[in-house]
């Protein structure tokens, strides 16, 4: 039932496009579609490549070398996760755009009146790389820490130098983790709406939104959305095949000694400069720009606008979405973990499929559905929360699944054996063990919902502004100082979650070595 509801949007979209027939395609024109697809693919390839180029060396430096201050870098390199892509884009525009800081700084002494164009592809790639490279970084760092150092030592003792060993052993063994990281980045980029819109880069998501806004007939938007879904599916399939036949588990975790750290020697300072450059650009610059705008707005006595209303709305919607998602995910996960059968597993896999559904696609489908069949729900908070739940359901299922896997069913049996009823056994043994995992899942959904933009734009009831839409509205009219406070609040609300979910659990770099 739950899964069916979650899959509903996709089915509806399909129906809609088939109904609309071929006119939808002719409205758009073949060439236009091809161009949009090419733009999107180019963006995905560039962002994924850039995220790998930043994330892998960072991960290696903080886990395997004597980099000065590596604990500090390990944490701060993950923190740009708190910055939504549209905030990153906004900051880049403010800093490097026409009449941005860079130009102002250069104008006085050098008379520079034009800086290189930031709009379009370069800006979109930059903004998305800033907000996605931490995925690659975190996964690569975890994999490097898990890697049995004996593999590298075996390679050295067989006559291969350190560089050859890295290329022929370390990288191939890391491949699944790098693949997973690249997949996350690619999916994020495919579904991103905010950054590409602000940068005015014609990717599919932006075109969908433009079509949706500009035409009465919404079928072309639906058709484009389907194209986007197909692209996403292709990315997923590619990643699946790239993983191949090889398995990379370490046989006996825990027995391996921590890898000895590579001494960087004179390379120490270039390495620190690299880390500082990435963190400075991806974390310090955005925060500095936002704080600057805010400070200026305050000192000029400008109206900051009512942010507490949107802040409350954001918290409300995110809390609801987190609660509903986890409550709905739990039964699915319980079925898959405790009663593994082909159909329960298929059910679970199906619920992951909405991972591949960009927010704008889900929103669009629900708009159609709401407007045509469920008028009572259209323009309500309920439908918005439903969209969030559909969008982030996989995150909730995955956390519930791993939380349940950690509870050995024998523990419950032991409790029964000690004279507890099934319900008491569940309440006294299973529930306390599962609770932290479920909370983590809820936190993940909460965080994602806070940052979500396209579905919120399309589905929020009139007058229901959230922090994300506030930032959006302010930036579309280039009122950066009005965007500053909501953007800062978004970051402030998200930061503890990101810290708890990724940094604290993820890179424990301080293994004795």
């Amino acid at each position: 039932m739950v899964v069916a509801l979650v899959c509903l949007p996709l089915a509806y979209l399909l129906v809609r496009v088939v109904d609309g027939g071929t006119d939808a395609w002719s409205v758009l024109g073949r060439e236009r579609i091809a161009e949009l697809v090419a733009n999107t693919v180019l963006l995905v390839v560039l962002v994924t490549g850039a995220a790998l180029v930043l994330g892998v060396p960072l991960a290696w430096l903080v886990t395997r070398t004597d980099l000065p201050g590596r604990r500090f870098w390990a944490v701060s390199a993950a923190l740009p996760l708190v910055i939504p892509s549209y905030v990153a884009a906004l900051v880049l525009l403010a800093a490097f755009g026409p009449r941005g800081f860079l130009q102002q700084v250069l104008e006085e002494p050098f008379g520079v009146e034009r800086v290189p164009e930031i709009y379009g592809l370069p800006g979109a790639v930059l903004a998305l790389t800033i907000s996605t490279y931490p995925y690659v970084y975190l996964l690569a760092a975890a994999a490097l820490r898990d890697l049995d150092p004996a593999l590298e030592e075996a390679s050295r003792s067989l006559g291969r130098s350190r560089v050859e060993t890295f290329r022929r052993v370390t990288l191939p063994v890391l491949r699944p983790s790098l693949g997973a990281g690249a997949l996350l980045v690619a999916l994020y980029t495919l579904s991103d709406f905010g950054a590409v819109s602000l940068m005015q880069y014609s990717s599919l998501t932006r075109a969908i939104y433009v079509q949706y806004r500009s035409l009465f007939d919404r079928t072309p938007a639906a058709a484009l959305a389907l194209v986007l879904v197909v692209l996403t599916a292709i990315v997923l399939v590619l990643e699946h095949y790239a993983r191949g036949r090889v398995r990379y588990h370490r046989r006996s975790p825990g027995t391996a000694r921590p890898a000895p750290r590579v001494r960087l020697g004179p390379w120490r300072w270039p390495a620190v400069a690299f880390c500082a450059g990435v963190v400075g650009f991806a974390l310090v610059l955005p925060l500095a720009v936002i704080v600057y705008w805010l400070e200026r707005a305050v000192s000029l006595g400008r109206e900051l606008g009512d942010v507490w209303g949107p802040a409350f709305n954001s918290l409300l919607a995110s809390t609801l979405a987190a609660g509903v998602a986890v409550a709905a995910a739990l039964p699915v996960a319980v079925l898959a973990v405790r009663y593994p059968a082909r159909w329960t597993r298929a059910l679970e896999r199906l619920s992951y499929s909405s991972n591949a559904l960009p927010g704008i696609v889900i929103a669009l489908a629900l708009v159609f559905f709401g407007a045509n069949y469920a008028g009572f729900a259209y323009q309500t908070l309920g439908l918005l929360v439903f969209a969030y739940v559909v969008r982030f359901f996989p995150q909730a299922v995955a956390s519930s699944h791993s939380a349940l896997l950690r509870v050995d069913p024998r523990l419950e049996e032991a409790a029964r054996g000690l004279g507890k009823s099934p319900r008491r056994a569940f309440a006294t043994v299973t529930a306390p063990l599962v609770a932290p995992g479920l909370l983590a899942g809820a936190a993940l959904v909460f965080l994602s919902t806070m940052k979500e933009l396209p579905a919120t734009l399309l589905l929020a009831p009139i007058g229901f502004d959230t922090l994300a839409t506030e930032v959006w509205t302010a930036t579309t009219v280039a009122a950066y100082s009005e965007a500053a406070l909501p953007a800062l609040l978004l970051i402030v609300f998200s930061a503890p979650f990101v810290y708890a979910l990724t940094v604290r659990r993820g890179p424990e770099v301080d293994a004795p070595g």
Partner: protein
Amino acid sequence: MGATMIRLERVSKAFGAVRAVNDVTLEVGRAEFMALLGPSGCGKTTLLRLIAGFEAPDAGTVAIGERVVAGHGWIPPERRHVGMVFQDYALFPHLSVARNVGYGLPRRGRDTRVAEALELVGLAAHCHRYPHELSGGQQQRVALARALAPEPAVVLLDEPWSNIDPVLRSSMRDELAAILRATGVTVLLVTHEQEEALSLADRVALMCDGEVVQTGAPEEIYYGPATRWAAEFVGAANVLPGRLAGGLVDTLVGRFPAPNGGEPGDVEALVRPELLELALDPAGEGEVVRREFRGHDVFYRVRLPDGTTVCSQRPSNESIPLGARVALRPHAGRVALFH
């Protein structure tokens, strides 16, 4: 044995405050099979890693063959020509068996050499498999083939049988040892199992707390341990008070010829349990207080009139019931004395 293959001179290595290897001097001869025996945490694996080049010594020198590889200058592991079989085998999970074995070989003649090495360990049929598709024993043989393929002068084995099912262990052990002996390579085996070390090695080096306490042939280590700790580590031991006089030592269980003299006086004597024969005798001085049937032999604990107990190990065809009075007859054999 001929020339020395591995020479460690006054080697020390500390990790923080822990002195893992402390002033160790050790030589392994060419084509010798040496076992480095000691309890876990005694520094034996660190010693192996110092030889392989995965750790650098804080003091002392390491030489392989004629070449000093650490101490004066530094030769990195990839240029030491040392084969290593790791505890968890460390097979490359992304490479097939054949490509694992061929990893350390030059392109030229690689295929023939891989085929030879796999033939040697009897896995020629599995060359296209991946490591996770093999059993533990097969993985270990692949690891050995990989280490032997580049024809190293030295092979280092780090507890190679610790992950093998105990039932299979002894046959695996014989198999691996036979392969190694056939190649004539110098072998240094790290293990914490005395039976393994004693049965396989030409010589055993006994390690404790980062120091090599004794080196010698298995019999020397077993019957002539240098310290009381060594005596108890390498096998079951009766350590009895005794008096040394005139080249003989008197103990509660009889009189033995003393090894290589020594000052007369009070000593502790090591009498291995299999040197104590028991005979049913109602007037005997001992009483059997515990009896452990172990298949091929029986282990008895016998209480002597003064309250001390000694153990005796007898073949299982001579059965003595629990509670019986027995006379103890020391067997001709070696005792060790600790002054």
